[in-house]
C-alpha cells in the first residue's frame, strides 16, 4: 500500500502528467457544463443566408459552418459525445480483453491455444476496414451500436497484455504458496492476478481513449460514424470537408480539439506507464500497446 501512495505521488509530480491531467479535467468540465454556458445552442441554424461560413470573429470565436451554426458551441457539444463514446468503448474493450486474457493465461493448454489463434486472426484484420464494412452494410447503426462495435474491435491487444501478465503472475512463488494453502482459483485471480494486471491495463486504457477518439472521427470522415445532427467531432468534419478550402476553420478547429485531447491522453498514458510499471519501458513488453489498425 505504501508503494501505491508513492506511485500516485510520483504521478502528480511528473511534469508532463500534470498538464495532461489538467487538460483532461478541463475537457471533462467543458464537455459537461460547456454547452450550457455558450450563447448559441449547438445545432441552431442562426441565419442560413447571411451567417453561413463566417470566419472566426469576436461573436463567433471559431466561426460558423455551412449551416450558420456556431462552431465553438458545436466543438463543445462534440466533446461530450466524442468523450462519452470513447470512454464507454474503451471500458468495454478492457473488460472483454481482461476476461479473455485471464482465461487464456490462467487456464492455459488447449483453451489458450485456441484463443490465441483466434486473437491472431482478429489482430490481422485491419480494424478500419472491418468497422467500415459493418457500419455500411448494416446501416443505420445507432450510437449505442457504434460504441459496441468500437469496443468489440479494440480488446485484442489488451487481452494479449493481460495474458502475458497472467502467465507471469501464475508462475510466481507466492501464487504457488497460496494454492498450496488451499486458495481457490477465483481467489487467486481476484487477489493476485488482477491487481498485477491492473497497471498495464490502465495504461492501455488511457492510450486507448485517444485511439478511439481518432478512430471515431475518422469513421465519421468516411461517412459511417455518428449521424446528423449529432455533433461528434468527427461529424463536424463531415459537414465541412467538402469545401474546406473555403472554410478551413470548420476543419481546422475540430482537428485541433482532437489533437489536444488525444495528446493529453497520450501524455497521461506515458506518464502512467513510467510511474506504475517501469518494467513496461522495455520495447518487447511495450509492443502490445502499439496503435492498433
Amino acid at each position, binding site marked *: 500500500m505504501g508503494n501505491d501512495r508513492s506511485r500516485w505521488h510520483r504521478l502528480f509530480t511528473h511534469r508532463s502528467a500534470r498538464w495532461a491531467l489538467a487538460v483532461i479535467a478541463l475537457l471533462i468540465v467543458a464537455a459537461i457544463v460547456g454547452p450550457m454556458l455558450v450563447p448559441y445552442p449547438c445545432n441552431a441554424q442562426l441565419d442560413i443566408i447571411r451567417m453561413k461560413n463566417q470566419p472566426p470573429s469576436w461573436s463567433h470565436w471559431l466561426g460558423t459552418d455551412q449551416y450558420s451554426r456556431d462552431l465553438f458551441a458545436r466543438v463543445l457539444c462534440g466533446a461530450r459525445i466524442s468523450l462519452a463514446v470513447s470512454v464507454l468503448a474503451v471500458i468495454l474493450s478492457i473488460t472483454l480483453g481482461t476476461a479473455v486474457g485471464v482465461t487464456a493465461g490462467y487456464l492455459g493448454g488447449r483453451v489458450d491455444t485456441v484463443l490465441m*489463434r*483466434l486473437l*491472431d*486472426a*482478429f*489482430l*490481422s*484484420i*485491419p*480494424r*478500419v*476496414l*472491418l468497422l*467500415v*464494412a*459493418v457500419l*455500411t*452494410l*448494416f446501416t443505420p447503426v445507432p450510437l449505442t451500436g457504434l460504441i459496441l462495435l468500437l469496443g468489440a474491435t479494440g480488446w485484442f491487444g489488451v487481452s494479449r497484455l493481460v495474458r502475458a501478465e497472467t502467465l507471469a503472475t501464475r508462475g510466481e512463488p507466492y501464487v504457488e504458496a497460496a494454492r498450496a494453502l488451499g486458495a481457490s482459483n477465483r481467489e487467486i485471480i481476484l487477489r493476485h492476478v488482477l491487481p498485477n494486471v491492473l497497471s498495464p491495463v490502465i495504461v492501455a486504457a488511457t492510450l486507448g481513449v*485517444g485511439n478511439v477518439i*481518432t478512430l471515431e*472521427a*475518422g469513421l465519421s*470522415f*468516411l461517412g459511417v460514424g455518428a449521424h446528423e445532427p449529432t455533433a461528434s467531432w468527427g461529424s463536424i*468534419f463531415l459537414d465541412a*470537408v467538402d469545401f*474546406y*478550402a473555403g472554410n*478551413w476553420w470548420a*476543419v*481546422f478547429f475540430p*482537428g485541433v480539439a*482532437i*489533437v489536444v485531447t*488525444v*495528446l493529453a491522453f*497520450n*501524455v497521461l498514458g*506515458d506518464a502512467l506507464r513510467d510511474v506504475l510499471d517501469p518494467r513496461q*519501458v*522495455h*520495447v*518487447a513488453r*511495450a*509492443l502490445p500497446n*502499439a*496503435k*492498433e*489498425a
Partner: protein
Amino acid sequence: MLQSLIVVFLVTTISFFVIRSAPGDPFSYESSNISLAVRNHWRDQFGYNRPLVEQYARYVISVLHGQFGYSFGMRSSVAEALSIAVPRTLLLTMLSLGLSFAIGMLVGAVQAARRGSWFDRISSGVLVVFYSLPDFWGALMALLIFTFWWPVLPSGGIVDAMHDFMSPSQAAWDRIRHLILPVGSLTLLTVAAIARYQRSAMLEILPSDYIRTARAKGVPERTILMRHALRTALTPMITLAGLFFPALLGGAVFVEKVFGWPGMGLLATGAIAGRDYDLVTATVIVGSVMVVIGNLAADLLQMAIDPRVRE
C-alpha cells in the same frame, strides 16, 4: 507457418460471414429499371439465394482454386481488380514504413545518446504531437497547405493526366511529386511511435555492461551507438515493423481517400458502398494475409539477425 495458415482460414471465415450476413445482396440495389426477373436470374447465377453455409462452402472451394469471385463495380474478376490496386497500396505503405524506420531510428538513437538535451526534449514534444494526429486530418491539412495556399504539389492521384506524354525524367519526377504528400502523411504517424520506442530501447541498452566495457576500452562513442546499441535494438524493432503493418493499412484507407490514390483502401471503401461483396471479402482477406506475411517476415528476419532469439 501452419499457424499462419490457420489464421488466414479463420480470417476468411469471419469476414465471409460478417459480410454476407448483411441485409440485402449485391443485386437488391441495382437501378429500378432492371426488372425483378433479371435480378433473380443473376441471384441464381451467382448463388446468392442459397443457404449461407452452402455459399460459404462454395466460396472456400473457389478460393482454394484461386478464384475470388467477380466484382460488379469494377466489371472484372476480383483477382484482377486487386492485382492492380494492391501494389499501389504496398508502394505507399512500404515507402512509409521504410522512411519511418530510417528517420525514427535515427532520431530515437540521437535522443537516447543526448538524453535530457534540448534536442531530446523538443523533438520528443514534437513527436508526441505527431503521434496524436488523426490520420486523415494531417492529410487534409497537408493538402490544404500544399495544394491550395501554396500550390506546389498535386492534389491527388498517382500521376498527372498527361503523364504518358512526358519525357522519362519528367515522368519520374511526376511520380515522385504525387507520392510526397500521401507517403508524408502516412509517415508522420508511424515515425513518432518508432522514435519513441527506439529511444526507450536504447536507453535500456546503453547502461548495460558490455556497452560500459566498450566505452572503457576507448571505443569511440559513435561506434558504440551505431554498432552495438543499434544492432541490439534492431531485433525488437523488426517485430515492431510487423505490428505496424495493420496500422499502416488502416491509415492507408484514410490517406487514399483524401488523395484519391486508387489502391486497396479506396477499392475497399468503394466496394463496401457498392455492395460488391466478393471484392470486400477478398480485400479483407488480402489485407490480413499481408499482415500475416509481414509478421512472418519479421519473425524470420529476427531469427536470422539474432540467433539468440528462440520462440
